[in-house]
Structure formats: structure tokens, C-alpha cells
């Protein structure tokens, strides 16, 4: 049964605050306050007409507060899900078709993320005008630029290349 209909889930009543979707993806158990960064990672800013519902800082059993992002008409790729893990390591991904959750899985941290984050080191070659795609290896507690080797442990979301 889908999260959206699962009344054994203490979060369900709160989830109803944002509309159900027919087909698309529900990203649940996003850490509170990270929903907009999730949208940034997915490249969703509303300019392409995407139908998106966002719940922010809603009460949760698992976390004190969580965010929920529902994207109508779009099923996330594994690459997108992997990258989400950097800022939403506890997220669950629900693929919804005809109002039913047909797939549900946790995010997994990838070994490398490419073209998603910008290096914060102004001395890094990737911050110039070179034709190079940013690449970060994923550490247990952060990410590391594959070029200048700078390690970022906090505020990774601020590096999202939007």
C-alpha cells in the first residue's frame, strides 16, 4: 500500500496536507528544510511547468520534522536518486503510477557525483572557464573535489550547481 494511503503510518495525516499525485515521484523523509535543495538538485524551478507539491517541516514519527516533495509526471532516474542522497540520506523514493506506489526504495550514496556540485575552492581549476564537468567523490561524511581535493562536510547543499 502506498504511503499516501497507509494510515498505519503516523505521518499519513500530515502528508494529506499536500495533494496526492497520479503519476510521478514522492520523495519522503527528506530532512527538514532541505526540500528546496531537493528541487534544485533535480533542476526543478517551475519554469518548465512541472507540477510540484512541497511539504516543509511537517511532523514525522521518524524525524521531529521532515519535508516531502511530490513531482507529478516525472519518475526519477537512479542517478538523480543517488545525488539526492547527499542532502537527503534518509529519503525514501516512491514511484507512483495511477495513484499507487509501484516502487519504493531508499536512496543509496554513490561513489561519485558529476556535474551537480560546484567546488567552493576559488583556487580550483573547475572554477575557471575550463570545459570541465565538476566531479566529487562521496566520502562517508562529505564530498571531495576530484580536481583540487577539497573536502566539504557541511552545507553540501550550498554547492548545488543550479
Amino acid at each position, binding site marked *: 500500500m502506498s504511503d499516501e494511503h497507509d494510515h498505519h503510518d503516523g505521518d499519513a495525516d500530515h502528508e494529506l496536507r499536500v495533494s496526492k499525485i497520479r503519476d510521478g515521484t514522492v520523495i519522503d523523509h527528506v530532512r527538514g528544510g532541505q526540500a528546496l535543495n531537493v528541487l534544485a538538485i533535480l533542476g526543478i524551478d517551475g519554469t518548465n511547468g512541472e507540477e510540484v507539491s512541497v511539504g516543509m517541516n511537517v511532523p514525522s514519527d521518524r524525524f521531529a520534522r521532515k519535508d516531502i516533495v511530490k513531482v507529478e509526471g516525472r519518475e526519477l532516474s537512479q542517478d538523480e536518486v543517488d545525488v539526492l542522497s547527499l542532502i537527503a540520506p534518509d529519503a525514501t523514493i516512491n514511484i507512483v503510477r495511477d495513484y499507487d506506489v509501484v516502487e519504493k526504495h531508499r536512496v543509496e550514496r554513490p561513489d561519485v557525483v558529476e556535474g551537480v556540485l560546484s567546488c567552493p575552492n576559488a*583556487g580550483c581549476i*573547475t572554477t575557471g572557464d575550463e570545459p570541465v564537468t565538476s566531479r566529487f567523490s562521496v566520502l562517508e561524511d562529505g564530498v571531495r573535489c576530484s*580536481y583540487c581535493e577539497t573536502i566539504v562536510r557541511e552545507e553540501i547543499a550550498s554547492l548545488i550547481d543550479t
Partner: protein
Amino acid sequence: MRHDHLITSKQLSRGNIENILDHAAEIDDDPSTVAGRHAETLLGLLFFEPSTRTKMSFETAMKRLGGDVVDMGPVDSSSVKKGETLADTVRVIEGYADALVVRHPKQGAATMASEFVDVPLLNAGDGAGHHPTQTMLDLYTIRENAGLDDLTIGIMGDLKYGRTVHSLAYALTNFDTRQHFISPESLQLPREVVYDLHQQQDGAGIREHDSLEAILPSLDVLYVTRIQRERFPDENEYQKIAGEYQIDADTLEAASDDLTVMHPLPRVDEIAPEIDETDHAAYFEQAHNGVPVRMALLDLLLSDDKGIWGDSDE
């Protein structure tokens, strides 16, 4: 031709390092064994930052191997001035040369450049990142003077921006060494480097200090680097600490008679001239070693049957 790149000393195992140093010693003993071996080989020199020793020793090394160099020349008179990217520059010059030497002010420049070329590329310094060929001549000098095992080394000065320091520290983790890093707090080793050193050596043998005094008597080698005045936003802050990281004859009274003092040069006032004539001074010898060591690196890199990595395709 093998297509190896040398970007960072982290690539090098103890076996790789010994292979390079042994070959450098052979060349040092008898340069004629490799004279003319790489006739008609052209080495491309791409220096986006000023350089004297590194650039000239590469040029000398290539010529002593029988080859020649093509030199991009000063940045101001190159297409870089017109806004050409590093990626484009290396792709153009690889069409002229059999191997490339790149120095660039940005960290990660050599890594990126190596992704755009098929010829071997040597990192001759990338910003505050790495300088692995300097490390090879540093290790050669250390091995000649103090050996590379059961070694206590002090590395002092600008450890934050000092790429020679980072590369040397990584390479030394392959040996039985105790490394003491001495600097003002504002110029400590980057946390990334400390992280790597702890990963490579379980943290054992890595210590950080803000003063040389207590540790000096235990050192076999003291590797001094220039504290760069321009790194300090406040001149007064620089003046407060500068004197503490300079050495002179009085300083070395507390040192072992066998202490070897090194410096990648250029120096400004970190080492008093009075030390030059003592048995401690190894920095000019260190600079001279740049030629046989870079001859060895180039010979290994350019030989079909050798390669920097020895017999393996690592």
C-alpha cells in the same frame, strides 16, 4: 610509447619511488649511460606561473637525454593572454611534443589537463596542490643525506599553500618516518592533507607544532619553506611570527650535528646565509639533484620498456 601521467605523489608506491631514485642515482654516477637515448624527443614546457629551477632543470634534463624542448614561453606572450583555456592549450601542444610538463596556478590543473591529452603529462606544480617531481628530488636528497627509513623530519613554514610540502608529506608515508609539521596556526597543513596523511599512515608519526624549539634536537632533516608575507592580510600579524620560523647558526646549536637542512628555494630570509657553508646545508645540492632526478623521470616515462611505474601497468 607508454602514456603515464605523474600528477601527484599519492600515485607513487615505495617501489615506484625506489625505482625512480635508483635510476636517478645511476644517471648521477654516469650520465653517459643515458646520453642521446631520447634523441628527437620533444618535451613541451607549459609554465603558466614563473619558474626557474623546475623549468630549467626539465629543459636541461631533456637536452642531456638527447632531446629538446618546445616552450610555450611567458603567459603574457602566449594565447593564454587571449583567453585560451588550459584544456585547449594542452591539446594544441600535445600535437607538437612527445610529453608535457605543466605548471599552473590553479589546484587540480594537471589532473584536468591530463584528461585532455594522450601524451604523458607531468605536474610541475598546480597552485597550492602538488609538485611531485620536486618531491622526487627532495627524496633523493634526503636518501643521500639521512636515508629514508627511521627518519625524523621537521617540515616548517607555509604548510597551507606549500605544494612541495604536501607532495613530500604524502610520499614519506611510504617509509618509516616521523613527520613534524611546524607552522603558525594560520598556515597549518590543509585539513584535506591531514585527512590523507592519517588515512595513509593511521595518524602515526604525524605531529603538528607551532614552534621548532622543542622538536629540533630530535630531527634528522629540517625542510624549510618560505612564509609568504603576501598571504597575511595584516602585516603586523606577519611580523609577529616571521622571526620564529627563520633559522640561523644560533638556532641550530640545539640541533644534531647530522641535521640536514633543506629548502625547495627560492629562499628569502628563512635560512641565514651563514648556514650555507655548514655541513647542515643541503639546499643547493637539492636543487642540483633536479637534473638527474628529472632525467630519470623522463627516461622512465619515455621508454617503451620502462615507465614510471616499473614493470607494472599500474
